[in-house]
């Protein structure tokens, strides 16, 4: 798109120069010249493509930053310089006849500045033309420090965008993004990512194959130039059946290099150390022994006399490093950038780590009098992740602290283990004995050609061919003598899971940008086709005859499982958009996308997704002309989006063959079976209809600016597994379009310049505040629903089997907790006593009988709070003084609740009464005195609102070395203020804290240098 961007920049420059004509001076025969160089004030690196306007002329700086303005009449002029990402520069210059005035322009970075162009689907628009809710985060404003996956770059930066690591501090543990709340229950709630114009499969695809659970884990953050979040339907409807959860456009630096740039070599590197922030609060050895003595003296005999801190034995400080070496440059008509990155991060839990090696290449070329612009981009990476097994953290919480780690007589590889098969397994043993690794090779790339048609001013045609590819391999090995292998009868397991997903994309579209007097029209329309194929072979062998081959071979075995799954997904789409602006004040926009997806059933082949929007630039009206109010713009939009991120082939009745372990016995023979599937042949997309009202404002020459948005989104035809009337289908549920939910909320953004520098080197302070409120409500879950229905939801909690703690209930937020109301005693603690005097402490004593039937059962559980935050707030400050810069980001959530499953599944004395393997308890037991588990008590649903200092960075730039050297230090997760009693209030999006990977505090020191 760089050609188009340049075209628009030029357009803007022309407009600017006309407006900025000073007038008053008549041309003389003799004139003077102004020349100079535009540089980054801090790094003193040249800035290309800066717009220099003086005396009615406008020029662009060259790749070396130089500019020349000739033929200027003598006089005093104001020279203005503007470039994306920097503060506007302005200075007075005196031109004398026959002389050359030198004005070097040192521009300061302004990361939070409003950019003149906004990226939208299939193009860019001038900000004044745009109606949709679009927020760009340029790389200068990204979060800093140890960034494992690129989703974290914009955490806390954009109103209404919630970024959560799915598994706390685990390197590569997965990241979830919710834009204005989730719109789905079983389909993906993740946004559509479009990397340099190539969309990646929603909710998985290139990111998830091979177990690296973040879509962007393969990207080197240093290669990202900007991330743009599209939030409302006006902005996202052009992505049709994939836009319901918002869209994030990612532009890589490779796609944005400037023609004629000098050859530059830059290096960025850093090292980090991480410490564990918090660990589960369980009893230590003396406390545990005391508890056993008091509560279950009969098991004292099985205790040893050790004092083992199992969590301590499982964790350690960890270190990380990251290096990026980039070479960029170009000639008059071309430019390129190559970057090589290496990333290595250990996890604080032993045996966990992630590595990434990336190689990216970008190339741009102008041809045929600059009428054809070609851009090619290839990103590639190898990622590797090692894990310690999924159960070890839970085991570290549960294992009795009186027991030793090692036992030389143990048959379980020298690790102490309980004999009982239900006893907790030694986490140190499991972590040491298990090999679990995921390696993935990914690549994404595209070639884009944009041709400006001669003789047809403003009309261009763009063709793009793109691909995504990922090959991921997961491998696992556990030796036969590991306790968890013997107790499950697996006796040695080796498996490999190889997944390949490839896709290709073809886009062809026309773009027209025209401008007549008071009219401005931009229109885009075309066709896009994308298809994906996945191949997933898998083999597993159990009951191995030998452990000697480890993960690298298969000895003889007694059980195996081999599967192969090949799937395709195709999506063909027509799309179009028009933006029309009258008198620079009134803008109308409309877009439409028609999607035909292989996932839609026969009667729903095509989905249509329109949007309309309008904007009124009130600030441009004469009555609103004021120095104080520099900008005021009212926007409104309406549109429809879809979500097709559900499984393939849902509309086909398929038959599944049974494994040879799930057969039927006829006489002495075992017969393999086939099972037909339950389907809805007409399944289709989930449809979100939304409207948005927004107000952009700017005060005091835009020293303070921002926006206010109100939105209302209704999602219909929600897909989930609906219980079907018995006898009408071939399972208890069928996946179909039933259900409705609504998200309403508002967002407020304020950007401000607290301190404006008058000279380079002065103190400056830029700040961003963003606040977002969202109210999620499920309105329908059943086609015959009466409003009283409830469906258990979420993931099963730890504790007894099949216990669900969340519910889908109309009128409540999705996945509200579904709990008993625990009666609270005078001491403020949950009651645990025989209140009714029937001789036992049971549910009747503890919980409120909501329906008054004298019995406490599931009918007395009620929806109570939800994991989704009401408020998400972020703040970023950036200060510079002289050669120092200081920035920090604060993040807060309010109204989000977490079910403390660690406390509920271990905080009771029955844990001790397993005569063969007493388990450790959460400290809450000392206070609550629960004898038996109270999984469904609302006591465990805790307010997990928090305020976190996400990162603080201090940097210093040496100007006289090379082309500028910057050193910096960052502290991430400096502190968290929360009332939540568990390890981490932000452990996951699902609201169940079940021995999540602990969060870390990370200290990073780094260096950026350009040669």
């Amino acid at each position, binding site marked *: 798109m760089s050609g188009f961007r340049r075209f628009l920049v030029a357009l803007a420059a022309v407009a600017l120069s006309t407006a900025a004509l000073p007038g008053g001076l008549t041309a003389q025969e003799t004139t003077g010249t102004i020349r100079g160089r535009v540089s980054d004030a801090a790094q003193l690196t040249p800035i290309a493509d800066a717009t220099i306007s003086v005396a009615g002329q406008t020029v662009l700086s060259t790749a070396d930053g130089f500019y020349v303005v000739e033929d200027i009449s003598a006089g005093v002029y104001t020279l203005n310089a503007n470039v994306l990402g920097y503060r506007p520069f302005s200075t007075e210059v005196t031109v004398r006849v026959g002389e050359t005035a030198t004005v070097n322009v040192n521009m300061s970075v302004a990361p939070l500045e409003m950019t003149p162009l906004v990226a939208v689907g299939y193009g860019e628009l001038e900000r004044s033309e745009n109606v949709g809710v679009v927020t760009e985060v340029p790389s200068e404003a990204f979060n800093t420090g140890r960034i494992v996956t690129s989703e974290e770059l914009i955490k806390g930066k954009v109103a209404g965008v919630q970024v959560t690591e799915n598994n706390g501090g685990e390197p590569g543990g997965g990241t979830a993004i919710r834009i204005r709340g989730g719109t789905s229950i079983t389909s993906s709630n993740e946004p559509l990512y479009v990397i340099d114009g190539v969309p990646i499969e929603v909710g998985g695809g290139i990111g998830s194959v091979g177990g690296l659970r973040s879509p962007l884990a393969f990207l080197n953050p240093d290669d990202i130039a900007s991330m743009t979040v599209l939030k409302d339907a006006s902005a996202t409807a052009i992505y049709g059946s994939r836009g319901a959860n918002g869209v994030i456009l990612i532009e890589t630096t490779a796609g944005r290099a400037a023609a004629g740039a000098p050859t530059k070599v830059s290096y960025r590197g850093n090292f980090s150390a991480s410490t564990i922030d918090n660990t589960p609060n369980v009893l230590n050895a003396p406390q545990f022994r005391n508890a056993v003595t008091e509560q279950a003296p009969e098991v004292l005999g099985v205790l040893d006399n050790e004092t083992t801190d199992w969590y301590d034995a499982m964790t350690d400080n960890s270190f990380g490093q990251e290096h990026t070496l980039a070479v960029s440059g170009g000639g008059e008509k071309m430019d390129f950038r190559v970057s090589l990155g290496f990333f290595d991060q250990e996890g604080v839990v032993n045996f966990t780590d992630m590595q990434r090696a990336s190689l990216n290449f970008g190339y741009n070329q102008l041809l045929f009098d600059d009428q*054809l612009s070609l851009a090619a981009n290839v990103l590639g990476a190898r990622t590797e992740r090692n894990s310690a097994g999924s159960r070890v953290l839970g085991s570290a919480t549960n294992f009795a602290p009186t027991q030793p780690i090692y036992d030389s007589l143990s048959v379980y590889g020298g690790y102490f283990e309980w004999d009982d098969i239900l006893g907790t397994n030694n986490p140190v043993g499991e972590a040491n004995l298990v090999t679990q690794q995921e390696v993935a090779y990914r690549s994404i790339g595209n070639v884009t050609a944009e041709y400006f048609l001669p003789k047809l001013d403003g009309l261009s045609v763009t063709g793009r061919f793109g691909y995504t590819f990922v090959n991921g391999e997961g491998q696992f090995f556990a030796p036969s003598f590991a306790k968890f292998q013997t107790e499950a009868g697996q006796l040695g397991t080796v498996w490999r899971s190889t997944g390949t997903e490839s896709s290709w994309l073809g886009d062809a579209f026309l773009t027209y940008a025209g401008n007549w007097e008071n009219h401005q029209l931009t229109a885009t329309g075309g066709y896009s086709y994308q298809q994906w194929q996945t191949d997933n072979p898998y083999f597993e062998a159990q009951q191995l005859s030998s452990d000697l081959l480890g993960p690298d071979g298969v000895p003889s075995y007694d059980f195996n499982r081999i599967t192969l799954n090949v799937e395709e997904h*195709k999506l063909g789409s027509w799309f179009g958009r028009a933006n029309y602006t009258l008198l620079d004040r009134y803008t109308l926009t409309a877009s439409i996308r028609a999607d035909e997806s292989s996932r839609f059933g026969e009667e729903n082949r095509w989905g249509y997704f329109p949007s309309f929007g309008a904007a009124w630039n009130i600030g441009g009206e004469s009555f609103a002309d004021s120095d104080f109010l520099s900008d005021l713009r009212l926007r409104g939009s309406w549109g429809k989006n879809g979500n097709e991120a559900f499984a393939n082939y849902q509309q086909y009745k398929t038959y*599944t063959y049974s494994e040879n372990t799930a*057969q039927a016995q006829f006489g002495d023979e075992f017969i393999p079976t086939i099972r037909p599937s339950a389907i809805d042949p007409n399944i289709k997309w989930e449809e979100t209809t939304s409207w948005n009202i927004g107000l952009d404002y700017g005060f005091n020459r835009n020293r303070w600016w921002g926006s206010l948005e109100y939105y209302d989104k209704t999602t219909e035809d929600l897909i989930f597994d609906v219980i079907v009337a018995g006898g009408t289908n071939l399972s208890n549920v069928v996946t179909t379009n039933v259900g409705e939910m609504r998200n309403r909320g508002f967002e407020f953004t304020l950007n401000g310049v607290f301190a404006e520098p008058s000279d380079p080197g002065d103190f400056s302070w830029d700040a961003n505040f963003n606040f977002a409120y969202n109210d999620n409500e499920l309105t329908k879950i059943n086609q015959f629903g009466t409003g009283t229905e409830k469906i258990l939801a979420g993931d099963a909690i730890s504790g007894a089997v099949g216990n669900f703690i969340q519910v889908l209930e109309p009128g409540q937020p999705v996945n509200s907790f579904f709990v008993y109301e625990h009666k609270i005693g005078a001491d403020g603690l949950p009651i645990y006593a025989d209140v009714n005097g029937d001789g036992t402490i049971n549910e009747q004593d503890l919980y409120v009988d909501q329906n008054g039937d004298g019995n406490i059962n599931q009918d007395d559980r009620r929806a109570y709070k939800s994991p989704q935050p009401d408020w998400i707030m972020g703040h970023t400050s950036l200060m510079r003084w002289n050669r120092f810069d200081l920035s920090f980001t604060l993040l807060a959530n309010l109204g989000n609740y977490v079910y403390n499953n660690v406390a509920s599944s271990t905080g009771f004395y029955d844990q001790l009464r397993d005569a063969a393997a007493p388990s450790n308890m959460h400290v809450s037991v000392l206070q609550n005195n629960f004898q038996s588990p109270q999984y469904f008590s609302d006591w465990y649903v805790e307010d997990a609102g928090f305020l976190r200092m996400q990162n603080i960075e201090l940097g210093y730039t040496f100007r006289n070395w090379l082309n500028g050297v910057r050193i910096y230090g960052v502290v991430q997760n400096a502190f968290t203020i929360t009332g939540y009693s568990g390890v981490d209030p932000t452990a996951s999006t699902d609201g169940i804290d079940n021995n999540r990977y602990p969060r870390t505090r990370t200290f990073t020191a780094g260096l950026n240098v350009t040669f």
Partner: protein
Amino acid sequence: MNIRKIMTLCVAFVGLVAVNACDVTTEPRSTVTDANIFEDTQSYEAFLARLYAGLGVTGQQGPSGDGDFQRLDEGFSSYNRQLWQLQELPTDEAVIAWNDAGLPELSYQGWASSNQFVQMMYSRIMFQVSMVNEFLRETTDEVLASRGQESLTEEIQQFRAEARFLRALSYWHGIDLYGDIPLVTEEYPLNGPPPPQSTRQELYNYVVSELNEIRGDLPPPGAGEYGRADQGAVAMLLAKLYMNAGVYVGSDAYSQAMTELDNVLGAYQLATNYRDNFVADNHLSPELIFAVPQDGERTRQWGGQTFLVHAQVGGSNEEMPPENWGIDGGWWGLRVTPEFVALFPGAENSPEGEYSPDGRQYFYWLIRDNGEPRSLEITSITDWYAGWTCPKYSNLTSSGLPGSHPTFPDTDYPMFRLADAYLMYAELAVRGAGGSTAQAAEYVNQLRQRAYGDASGNIGAGDLTLDFVLDERARELYWEGHRRTDLIRYGLFTGGDKLWSWKGNVQAGASTSDHLNVYPIPASEILANPNLTQNPGY
């Protein structure tokens, strides 16, 4: 390259992309669809096998994975695990220590319509019905002819009869557990609207007529392949229906029950040892009329007998060495009530070892490692050590060898066996439905002689009373999934006439409401099918 060429290329590119992409249809590649599955004639037997497997496994992978149901724990979704739980836990025969949501409520008759186990059993029943209906739709003469497979018609005749037997069996469970549920036959379209509710009477009539219709297409009693239905299974199922007709339709049919038993009594033999019916090689027992086979290698699941064998064992490895039951560890769950123990004379007073001369009890390990006795009283449902265990099932063979896998027992689930028929005969004789009480006493004594090892426990015809038969059914058939139905037939399941520990959620036992004689239609089902009316009292 000039501009015209470029333009041509651009247009060609757009055209190429659009034309190439106009069809997005993709068909499944790694699974077969209904378009081609039956080209393979093996598929018919495989589908029939799946109908039987509906009683034995929980999905297409063993022990779990690719489950038949969604949103439910797969191990919980097992047909015979839930049938067993709903039939045994609310009675005097069993309590279970676990805290799974809704499970303690089964032990004390406190379930609500949202209870997940109540929901799962209902789903299992209707799943069997749907699958049978689909099988019948795919195997009509017309459909076979349309596939050019007329030659299969004869073989498939028996398949269809077996499928209809399985549907009848599930409908029997349906009317027994839930009362009025929809009657859905193969006439009802797949993906159709929610079916109307039927009455117990309609279902009863339907099942009786179905069983009588298919009888001729099945092998004679005892002649069917093991694990498959034959006329013996049909007769036994009909006898069960008639036996409980008073409960199901309000009018007794005892004499019809007696007639059906005649088809069974002579066709099978008692196993020599009582325990041969509950061990890893119980498929060899000549006593089994219809069983759900389970195999450690080939029919793995976390429900069924895997559940039953493991759940009855617990405590330390010294207290109850799991290898004594051929398994790799206990699950610390099932115990019996003191009222059940009292059915075995002398048991309560036994210090250890030989608890009662009646060899059918397996009360086990009174004394724990720490020297304290396990309490006979169930002071708490959730305390494994409160109440005696009675591990009747074993994954050791009759000769004491371990089954094929220590986690997944080979022990088959004995759904119908001859001893049950004997005791039904005895009850019917006492109820005056034919036969003779002398013959009844003879049958009972065959069982008791096997239990005692000699004639010391034998009774006379005069000892035969309805109460005696009920108690004898408990002694002989406990933990085989009959108790709830028996107690309801006797009018003792609810109300205050018979109390046992934790009935009504108090340790001493309390009267419960009669509406509990049928389970509620699951709340989720009421929502999915607006035609349904909830059972009274829920």
